[in-house]
């Protein structure tokens, strides 16, 4: 799974304090419209029975899937996967059919009502292509976000995942799309919840 380059994010939930700073940084950097998100922090929990309660924050974002359904269903090729693994949208040829929104298992794509096209996290390629880090990574006050190539053992993401140990590395449910974003959560912080998170209804 990691032979090909795969730029992605690793988010350390042990460190995330749920400040929503990544959301703000993302909106500022990418000019994301009001009510639209490329990146959103959710609260998971509290779960358990008082006084043994657990809660953690889950920053959600495009999962930069290895086998993205959004790309497969796009009728014009507007949704595509770059050679470095980043999933992007060419807004110049997007039909605005929203089929990719239906095909995304995580609901992390949005329809821009003004431009009539679909949008999503771009991993800030305007920054990363010139060697910088995505805005959410740069501005995370808890230093909880990491960006890099999963196929490169020397990248930030590979390094923190190796340090965390496989038992503490989690990913979102896989419906055959193989998400690449990884979450680090140790049991000492909270138990990873495979079920629903608060606000997980639409």
């Amino acid at each position, binding site marked *: 799974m990691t032979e090909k380059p795969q730029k992605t994010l690793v988010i350390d939930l042990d460190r995330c304090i749920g400040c929503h700073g990544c959301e703000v940084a993302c909106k500022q950097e990418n000019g994301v419209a009001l009510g639209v998100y490329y990146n959103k922090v959710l609260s998971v929990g509290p779960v358990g029975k008082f006084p043994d309660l657990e809660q953690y924050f889950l920053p959600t974002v495009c999962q930069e899937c290895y086998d993205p359904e959004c790309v*497969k269903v796009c009728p014009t090729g507007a949704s595509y996967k770059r050679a470095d693994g980043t999933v992007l949208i060419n807004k110049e040829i*997007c039909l605005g059919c929203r089929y990719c929104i239906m095909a995304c298992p995580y*609901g992390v794509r949005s329809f821009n009502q003004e431009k009539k096209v679909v949008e999503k996290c771009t991993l800030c390629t305007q920054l990363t292509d010139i060697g910088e880090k995505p805005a959410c990574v740069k501005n995370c006050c808890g230093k909880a976000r990491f960006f890099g190539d999963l196929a490169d053992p020397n990248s930030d993401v590979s390094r923190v995942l190796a340090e965390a140990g496989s038992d503490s590395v989690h990913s979102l449910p896989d419906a055959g799309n193989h998400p690449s974003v990884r979450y680090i959560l140790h049991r000492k912080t909270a138990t990873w919840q495979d079920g629903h998170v608060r606000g997980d209804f639409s």
Partner: protein
Amino acid sequence: MSIEWALVGFTLFVGLSVGTFGGVVATEWWGKATEVRLPGAIAALVALAIGGFSSVLHLGHPERIFGALGHPTSGIFMESLMLGLFGLDILAYLIAMRRDASDQRRKTIATIGMVPAILLAFAVGDTYVLASRPAWDTLILPVIYLVSAGVMGCFSLSVLIARTKVVETIATTTAAVNRVTVYALGVQTVLLIAYLVHLAIAPYADASRSATRVLAGDLAPLFWIGLVLIGLLAPAMLTTLLGRKKAENLTPLSSAQLGLLCVLVAGVAFRVMMFSLGSSIRHFF
């Protein structure tokens, strides 16, 4: 997810068009009810045009639709292609009628049109079969769309036959059409039950897309009234009453029209229910 009304209109009118033209093709093979062929083909073409227009309303940039030609594997490409071929075939059929083509040639043109028609009715449902939406991730869905087109076609044909007011035509065809209608409604019932079973056993169980929500939750009125009562029981009753001529206050035409209205309303109800159940595995934004 939110109800995509443009897609509701698209799939409903495409189904109506396919069903209506299917009825016309049936009369060609049957060799009866010749009077319904011209209005039937025109009605099918009009319904197809309305469906196509509805799908355009859904697009943010319809002027970019030709970009889809380069990606023949997408569901939208298949829908567009089949819609185009089906529309052309109906036009060819109408031209053949206008030019008094032979029975065999007309029948051949009509029959060929059923290939893209059936593929289209199936494809509009198959587009929704997505692993990301557990409630939709079943082939039962496109089969329901296909059979629904058949049910709409049966009532559409009944209306067309009743409208002819030709006693002989009505007498020789009504019983057979009603029999097929009842069978189609039976298949529809089985498919609806199968879909409920799918909802109950689909992976990533969630209250937003559960069978409980359909049977006893906020979607229950839509299911019991819209689908069971209006979509199955009322049409079945109208069909059997019509067949047995026991409906004293209901003429064959009004009975068929009411039946068609019922299945159209149920068609909308099913699509609304489908969109309401179409939550993704996780919905974050």
